[in-house]
């Protein structure tokens, strides 16, 4: 069972605040999901040596030129002197 501390840790690294209701029901729901994907443990270690078939050819990248996309629209009023303004770093 995912403990309260583990859930808090996952929420922290995922940068999500959970509501009280979510904090109460998520451990059981996440547990069921993890139990379900645990079936992957059955895969023999020999099976893990299979080639990775994700075929993406990175030899033919396009030239790195700026293409105007019609102007960047900032949907929020957070700009200052042409820069985006974010919260303080801690």
């Amino acid at each position, binding site marked *: 069972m995912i403990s309260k501390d583990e*859930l808090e840790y*996952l*929420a*922290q*690294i*995922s*940068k*999500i*605040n*959970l*509501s009280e209701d*979510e904090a109460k029901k*998520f451990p059981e*729901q*996440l547990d*069921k*999901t*993890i139990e*379900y*994907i*645990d*079936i*992957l*443990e*059955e*895969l023999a270690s020999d*099976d*893990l*040596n*299979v*080639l*990775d*078939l*994700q075929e*993406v*050819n*990175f030899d*033919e*990248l*396009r030239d790195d030129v700026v293409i105007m*996309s*019609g*102007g*960047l*629209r*900032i*949907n*929020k*009023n*957070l700009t200052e002197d042409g820069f*985006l*303004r*974010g*919260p*303080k*770093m*801690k």
Partner: protein
Amino acid sequence: MSSLHDLLAHEVVDGIKEGLFTAEEYVCSVIKTIEDVESKVRSFITLDSEGALSSAKLIDRKFKQKEDIGLLGGVTVGIKDNISTKDIRTTCASKILEDYVPSYDATVIRNLKQNGAIILGKLNLDEFGMGSTTEYSRYHPTHNPWNLDYVPGGSSGGCGAAIAAGECTVSLGSDTGGSIRCPASFCSVVGLKPTYGRVSRYGLISYANSLEQIGPICRSVKEIVLIMNIISGKDNSDNTTVSSSQITINNKLDKFDIAIIKELIDGSDHEVRSTVYSASDKFKEIGCTCDEISIKNLHYALPSYYTLASAEASSNLARYDNIRYGFDLPIEEYNWDTYFSNVRKNFGEEVKRRILIGSYVLSSGYYSKYYLKARSLRSLLKLELLKLFKKYDLLIGPTMPILPFKFGEKIDDPIKMYLVDINTVIANLAGIPAISLPVGFSNGLPIGLQIMAAPFEEQKLIDVSYALENTINIQRRPNLI
């Protein structure tokens, strides 16, 4: 002639070109249908009737001036609301993006517009494409036009419902684990998930990049071909795309060797199973062979899919930091982490669950236990399927193992909801093309047949689907008004 909103895409183009009606008359007929049925079906998140009417007038002007109106001249298209449309709000059915208006068109939208298509509006989905019912939309659920108490499937549920209800002529959805095929099956329409790399994902708001593809949901196979030839091809903005040959409608069918996947049949409801067996008998009648086969690694497919999709989601959705778009939260009271976490509490529950699971399977100690094994399984499954495609042209089974179900039936149990995708995730893991075709009804609820082919063999899918469509005449339009 039937009502204009009932016409298929090629009939609309031909009608306008022959001067039988104007694009404006046709668009008005579609808008009238939306006015009549939208309060029941709720397919749209954003409707752009005004924009559609002015585009229609432009098409009519072109026609009068004897200019080419394009292959889709005047045809109304509904777009799943996770595909970027310039100057039309694109929300992903999320509150996080409720005010987001893209400054550019996705490549597929640009291609549609260049061919005269009219973008009618943005269609509902489960938030960020995570779900199979549209119940996870943060705006409202969409209802199945065949029975309004039932879900339309998802995540492209708005597309399936809008096409069945006549609210637009064709639509574009996206498919990460079955999101085009599931609503196509539940709404008795046709949906194609193309081979990975056939259609550009530029402008598709990412959920799980290595799995997802944009594809058409329409009422007929002929329309699927028309749309696919417009949206496919190499795009410099998406390095995973490749050039591919055009597909066509052939009236003569090759004698294909077809295999029914035993595990998909065995795991299905009785009504679904018998309807799919009847469809396979039709294949035999039209000269194809039909064997039953087993896939060794199939029971690992769904856990692998949810491991990979959640991992990619947790990474992709990290970008929603509320700096460029999002909520009006004063930044002065927060430091970076609390601001970020506070904003992201606005994701819906399912999105949060998947982000948390993604963080879990990618974290130290679990990465090799889950993520690496899921990736290996994916390769094993692909190798096994490619071997099968040396012997068989096509693999078939039910698109969905169950009939459409009522709202609320599965929403409290994520695993029950995930199991709905068990037949469709195979094609996404292996990157192969798959189509869902309506093949029957049980108690007034639609049943779809899934047909899969080897990578870039969409032509075979189309040939056999077109032959079957002409053999079994399945109702595509419910009586809603």
